[in-house]
C-alpha cells in the first residue's frame, strides 16, 4: 500500500537527490578513513570522534563570531584544520612509534583514543547537545520535481563532486599522492628508493583526519551536535569502506552511494522498515563479493 501510494517518478527523483546529499557527507568521512586504512594500515576507530570534534568546533567558532554567515564559512575551514592539527600531534607523538605493531594493537590503541577524545569533548563542551543554523543563503528550500528540497542539501550535493575531484587530483596528480599509493602497495620498496615514508604517512594521516573534520563541520547545521554522533558515523563509514573495498577511495565513493541511496529510497518505498535497507544492501554485497566491490589494497 505504501509502495503504490508513494512511488511517483518525481518523488523518486527527489528522494535520490536527498540520498545523494547524504552520500556527500558519508563519502567525505569514509574516504578519509579509507585513505588512512589503505596507506597506513590503521583501522582508525577514532575517525568518528574526529568527526564529532569537527562538528563541535564548527559550532563554537560560528557562535564565537556571532552565529552569522561569516562565522559559519570560517568555521567550515577552521574546524577541519583544527582537527587535522590534533591528528598531526597524535600521529607525531604516538602513532609514529606504533607502525610496526600488529593490527590488533593499533585497533586497541585507536579505540582508547576514542575514549580520550570523548571525554575531552565532554570536558570542553559538556554533555548538552548543541544546535547550529546554516547561513541565511542556505536556509529554506527550492522546489525540484515539484517537491521542496532544502537549500543546504543542494549545497552538499554540489560540494560532493568537488571533494571527489579534489581527492582524485590529490591521489593521481600530486607527488605525495603517487607516493602514498605506492606505499599502500609496498611500503618497503618505497622506503628502499630513498623516500621518507614516515613523512608521507604523516601527511596522509593528517589529510584523512582533515576529511573527518570536514564531514563533521558540514553536518553540523543539519543535526544535533552531541555526544554519540561519533558512534553512528564510525559504524556506517566502516561498512561503507568494507563494501567498497578496503583502502580504495573510489570504493568509498561507491559504498557511500549504495548506503546513501538505499537509505533514502528505502524510506520512500517502505518507510516502516527503512532502517533495514542500507544494512541489507551491505549484506547482499558482501555475500556476492566478500572482499568488497572494488580492488582492496589489503
Amino acid at each position, binding site marked *: 500500500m505504501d509502495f503504490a501510494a508513494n512511488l511517483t517518478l518525481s518523488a523518486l527523483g527527489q528522494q535520490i537527490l536527498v540520498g545523494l546529499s547524504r552520500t556527500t557527507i558519508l563519502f567525505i568521512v569514509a574516504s578519509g578513513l579509507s585513505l588512512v586504512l589503505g596507506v597506513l594500515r590503521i583501522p582508525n576507530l577514532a575517525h568518528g570522534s574526529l568527526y564529532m570534534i569537527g562538528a563541535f568546533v564548527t559550532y563554537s567558532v560560528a557562535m564565537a563570531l556571532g552565529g552569522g554567515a561569516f562565522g559559519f564559512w570560517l568555521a567550515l575551514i577552521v574546524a577541519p584544520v583544527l582537527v587535522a592539527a590534533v591528528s598531526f600531534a597524535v600521529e607525531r607523538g604516538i602513532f609514529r612509534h606504533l607502525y610496526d605493531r600488529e593490527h590488533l594493537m593499533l585497533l586497541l590503541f585507536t579505540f582508547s583514543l576514542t575514549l580520550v577524545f570523548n571525554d575531552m569533548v565532554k570536558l570542553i563542551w559538556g554533555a548538552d*547537545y548543541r544546535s547550529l543554523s546554516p547561513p541565511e543563503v542556505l536556509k529554506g528550500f527550492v522546489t525540484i520535481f515539484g*517537491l521542496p528540497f532544502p537549500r543546504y542539501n543542494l549545497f552538499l550535493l554540489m560540494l560532493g563532486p568537488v571533494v571527489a575531484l579534489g581527492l582524485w587530483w590529490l591521489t593521481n596528480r600530486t607527488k605525495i599522492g603517487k607516493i602514498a599509493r605506492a606505499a599502500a602497495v609496498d611500503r618497503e620498496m618505497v622506503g628502499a628508493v630513498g623516500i621518507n615514508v614516515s613523512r608521507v604517512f604523516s601527511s596522509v594521516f593528517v589529510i584523512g583526519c582533515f576529511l573527518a573534520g570536514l564531514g563533521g563541520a558540514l553536518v553540523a547545521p543539519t543535526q544535533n551536535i552531541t555526544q554519540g554522533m561519533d558512534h553512528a558515523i564510525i559504524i556506517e563509514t566502516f561498512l561503507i569502506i568494507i563494501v567498497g573495498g578496503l583502502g580504495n577511495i573510489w570504493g568509498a565513493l561507491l559504498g557511500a552511494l549504495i548506503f546513501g541511496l538505499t537509505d533514502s529510497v528505502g524510506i520512500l518505498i517502505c518507510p516502516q522498515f527503512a532502517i533495514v535497507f542500507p544494512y541489507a544492501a551491505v549484506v547482499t554485497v558482501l555475500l556476492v563479493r566478500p572482499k568488497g566491490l572494488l580492488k582492496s589494497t589489503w
Partner: protein
Amino acid sequence: MKKVVLIAGMLALICSSAWAKAIKVGIVDCYSGPASTYTNDVRDGFKLYVDQVNGAGGVLGTPIEFTTRDSKFKVDLGLREAKELIMREGVDILMGTINSALALALADLSAKEKIPFFSTFSKSAKITGEKGNRYVFGMNENTTMAGKAAAVGLAQKPYVKYWIAGDDYEYGHAIAEGVWDNLKKLKPEVELLGQSWWKVGEPDFTPYITAMLAAKPDAVIIATGGRDCVPFLKAAQATGFNQKVPFFMHTATELSTLMPLGQEAPENVIGTSNYFFYYPETAENKSFVESFQSAYGRPPKVGAMYGYVTAKFIVEGYKKAGKVDTEKLIDALEDMTVDSPVGPLTMRGGDHQVMFPMFMGITQKVPEYDFLKASDIVTIPGDQVMPSMDEIKAARGQ
C-alpha cells in the same frame, strides 16, 4: 538515681527530636546531561512552594525538608540512591524521575517499602496503569493522556488522510498508538496512508520528510520526543514541511523545545502540553510565573508546574490528614482537589493520577518573545484525557 536521670534525659532527648522532626522528601532524578533541562524545573518548582510553606511555619507546625540525588539517567544508580534515601536518610516521601524505567522501578520499591512515590515527568502510562499501586502518584500527563488529548483536538480539525512517523522505541509507538486509536474512535472516517519509523538519534530527517510530502497526507502525526524534537523541527523548517502539511508533535509547543530554536522554529506546528507560562491568563498563573521568575530568573517550564503541584498536593494532603502519617496522607490525597496555576486539579482516587488538563496550540511567531509561542490554544479538560477506570483495572488485571 543516676540511672533514672540518665533515662529521663534520654527520653527528653528523644521527645525533643521527635518534635523537631521535619517531613523529609527525597528526590531522585537525572540532573546531568540533556534531561536536566526538564528536571531542574521540577526541583525548582517544588522548592518554590516548599519555601513558601516553611516560611509560614510548615505543615501542621512541621517543616518540609528535601534532598536531591542525581541518577545520571541510570536505573541501577537511581534505585540504589532511592534505597539509601529510605534507609539512611529516613525519607517519608520519594519523588522523581524523568526516566520511565527508573520510575517504574521506584513504583515497585515504594509498594515494598510503603513509602509514597510521586512520579514527576516520566511519561509512561504504566506508572499509574499496570504498575500502579497504593503508594504511587502520577503527577503529570502520560502517553495515554497525551494520545487522547491529541485525538480530541485533531478530531475537530478537517484532516482525513494521515501519516504517522516517529522514534522506533516505546515512547514513539505508545504516543502514536494513543493518538491513532482514539482518533479512529472519535472520527471513524480517518485514513492512515502509511507510517515511517526512524531510529532514536536519527542524524538526518530530510529523506523521511520528503518521502512523507510525496505521499500528500492531510496531516502528519510525529511521535518523537526528547532531544530528537529540535533537529526534527529544524529539518521541518528547512524542507518547508510545516508550510505544506500541518503536523502534530506532542511536545512541539513546550518551552524547552521552542526556546533553543529561537526564531528558527517552524510555525504552524500543532502541539500539546500541560502548561505554558503565558497560558492560562489568570491571576493565579501570573502570580506563579512572577514568583518563579523572581526566584530563579527564568520563566517556568512545564516541569516547574509538576514540581509545584506535587508540593501542593503533599502539603494539602497532610493538612487534610491532620497528622504526619503516611497511610493517612494517602487516604487524604485520594479524590482531593487543590488549586493550581492551571485551575483546580483533582487526584483521581482510583488510580492516583492527577487529572491535568491538556492545552493544544499551534506554534506562532510573536513580537513579545524571541522564541515562538503556542497560539489558538484549546483546553482539553482533565476528565476527557484520562483513561477510564475500567481500562486501568484491566491493565492492572483486576
